[in-house]
């Protein structure tokens, strides 16, 4: 028995993705070749590009296929850094970004960029006053703020941010990896650069995209070919892109997430009722419909996670990328949690395959393990 309550980490490959991937196996030419073999592959690639672009109502010309969300983020940041002539490069971001953004920013700092980070409140919401002030005084060359937080699900107000950046004539990049497929794209499509990823929407791992309006040039990080309109040289990951397109084709109506939202809310209510002394980070902020950042006071997430895994339930302690390290989640500490409190946080994220029974079972197990651990503490 394996119940996944960690869909923010990844999702199973859908039938739609597999169907398109098989087409590439049959049409295996190199899309850059001029002969018929290559042309057929090129046509297929173009159809995939259209399929993905149409899901976000953007021009296929603005789409660069990458190896995933992390690379899309890196490309937006480093590509912008190299493209801007004025030095030092100034970046406005937040302290709760995904580690692929955080890590790239740290690297760029060693190259001498200036960074300012907008504050978030205890609910994980962006401090808009702080943002507006910093936008005005710092005048960054690029703003990078995520759409939906991968650990808490909290949404940043991208429409408002996009408007303010447009007024200031500054580009906005947003990491929409977790939001794509769960939230209406009009919410985050006002940004100039958008990162998305296939494996969060039942596509294959190893494939993502960056939408980047040509208005804001990016220096390529991959040379040797003119693929992706010279923005990313190298033979395309045709099979990954196919899967991505197939997954996009199967993106269902967003109303399917209403069901998940109800399950998520019910899950939180039940835990609160039966356990007490349990907290959900970011619950009062606008959030993704599927994510709970759960803190059960006095119980280390580590023990609970392992106990759940032994029962066949997959959950995570925050970000998949950060597991195994002793540093507590930077997202949670930015929101004001202490190290000890951060260690008590688990991330539970439901997906389209989640059933009522799944949620019920997981809630029951979290409750029973917690009660057992609390009982032990009392006798110690």
């Amino acid at each position: 028995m394996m119940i996944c309550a960690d869909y923010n980490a990844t999702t199973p490959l859908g039938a739609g993705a597999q169907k398109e991937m098989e087409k590439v196996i049959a049409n295996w030419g190199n899309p850059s070749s001029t002969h018929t073999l290559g042309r057929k592959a090129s046509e297929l690639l173009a159809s995939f590009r259209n399929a993905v672009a149409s899901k976000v109502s953007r021009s296929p010309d603005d789409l660069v296929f990458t190896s995933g969300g992390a690379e899309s983020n890196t490309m937006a940041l480093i590509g912008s850094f190299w493209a801007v002539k004025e030095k030092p490069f100034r970046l406005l971001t937040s302290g709760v970004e995904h580690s692929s953004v955080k890590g790239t920013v740290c690297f760029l700092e060693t190259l001498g960029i200036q960074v300012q980070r907008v504050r978030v409140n205890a609910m994980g919401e962006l401090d808009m006053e702080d943002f507006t002030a910093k936008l005005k005084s710092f005048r960054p060359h690029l703003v990078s703020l995520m759409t939906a937080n991968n650990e808490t699900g909290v949404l940043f107000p991208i429409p408002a941010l996009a408007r303010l950046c447009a007024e200031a004539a500054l580009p906005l990049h947003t990491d929409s990896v977790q939001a794509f497929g769960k939230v209406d794209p009009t919410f985050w499509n006002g940004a100039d650069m958008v990162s998305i990823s296939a494996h969060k929407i039942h596509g294959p791992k190893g494939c993502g995209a960056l939408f980047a309006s040509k208005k804001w040039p990016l220096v390529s990080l991959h040379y040797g070919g003119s693929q992706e309109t010279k923005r990313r040289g190298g033979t395309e990951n045709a099979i990954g892109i196919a899967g991505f397109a197939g997954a996009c084709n199967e993106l269902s109506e967003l109303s399917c997430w209403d069901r998940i939202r109800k399950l998520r809310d019910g899950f939180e209510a039940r835990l609160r009722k039966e356990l007490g002394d349990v907290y959900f980070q970011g619950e009062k902020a606008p959030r993704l419909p599927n994510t709970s950042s759960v803190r059960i006071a006095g119980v280390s997430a580590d023990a609970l996670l392992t106990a759940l895994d032994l029962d066949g339930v997959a959950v995570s302690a925050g970000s998949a990328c950060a597991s195994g390290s002793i540093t507590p989640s930077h997202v949670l500490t930015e929101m004001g949690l202490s190290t000890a409190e951060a260690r008590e946080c688990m991330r539970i994220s439901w997906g389209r395959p989640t059933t009522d029974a799944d949620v019920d079972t997981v809630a029951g197990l979290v409750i029973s393990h917690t009660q057992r651990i609390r009982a032990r503490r009392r006798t110690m």
Partner: protein
Amino acid sequence: MLSHNPLLPKKGAKVVVAMSGGVDSSASAAWLKTMGYQVIGISLQLHDHASKVENKFGTCCSLTDIGDARRVAEKMDIPFYVKNMETEFNESVIDDFVHEYLNGRTPNPCVRCNEKVKFSRLMEWSMDLGADYLATGHFANVRFNTDSNEYELCKGVDPAKDQSYFLFTMKQKDLGRTLFPMGGFEKKQVRELARELGLAVADKPDSQEICFVQDRSYKDFIEERVPASLLRPGLIVDPQGRTVGEHPGIHHFTIGQRKGVGVQSKDPIYVLEVNQERNEVVVGPESFLFKKSCSIAQMNWVGTPELDKPHGFTAKIRYRAKESPVVVRPVLDNRVEILFTEPQRAITPGQALVLYKEDRLVGGGWIETVA
């Protein structure tokens, strides 16, 4: 009445096995699995593998060792987790190690690790998971005495490999939840068992040194962690107090040490005492190393204290020492005075003194002063 192996867990019991990647703990995990228990393998991550000093750490519990443990777990179809206990290890083992040397004592970090990390934090975590037992690959045994109604900690059957010494801080409640699956085997049988079960680590050499200082000297290790102002040079003196040389820092010395003392003499001379207060090292002839009594602190009795019958005990003043008959006298609190029948060579403050009655480990404590 003693019952042999009364502690074979009940059918289907859940056992967390601490796996270092070595053959003993690997065989323990594998053997328990074949016996039908629900085994959960865990490796402790005690060092920061991401940091640049990775290659300076020894082979125990390094990334490759965790990899070895993981492969054994995969082979035996055992769920496997890596538990990060760097902070606890740094606080309870490494800091203690450094402080002891700064105080002119010679520490035993392996005992501290068992006491403060394995059988406390890891034990609690295992119980939180709902496990019934924590198992390790130590060569030791737990028995239950139905007359005294107490658990007993006993030596492993292989006298050359017995590791009960390192476990002297265990208490009754720990013993009731601990398994030492390899305690009844000889080392060569453990390797045979590992081979039979097809474990890749069957012929892996044992780790010999302290796990966090294998490839370099402990002096370098200490110097990296302590401001130079605390490691001051001082005088080397003879037993009469006359200066015979200078030393670069008391952390370079341990009692009984002969090499690296740096004093010219026609007869061999040895470190007799490391005096932190005066920052002095006392040296002298070998005969001065033999003493018959010492006091120990933080005495732990594994079962009911046995102070009404002070005779019949043997003691080891270090892991590799031969057991020697002693008389035990209480002093105050948990302090005890130990009187040896035979003079002992190089009784060292900071080391553990462990008491046995035949193959039963009765208790132990930390050597404070030597008379």
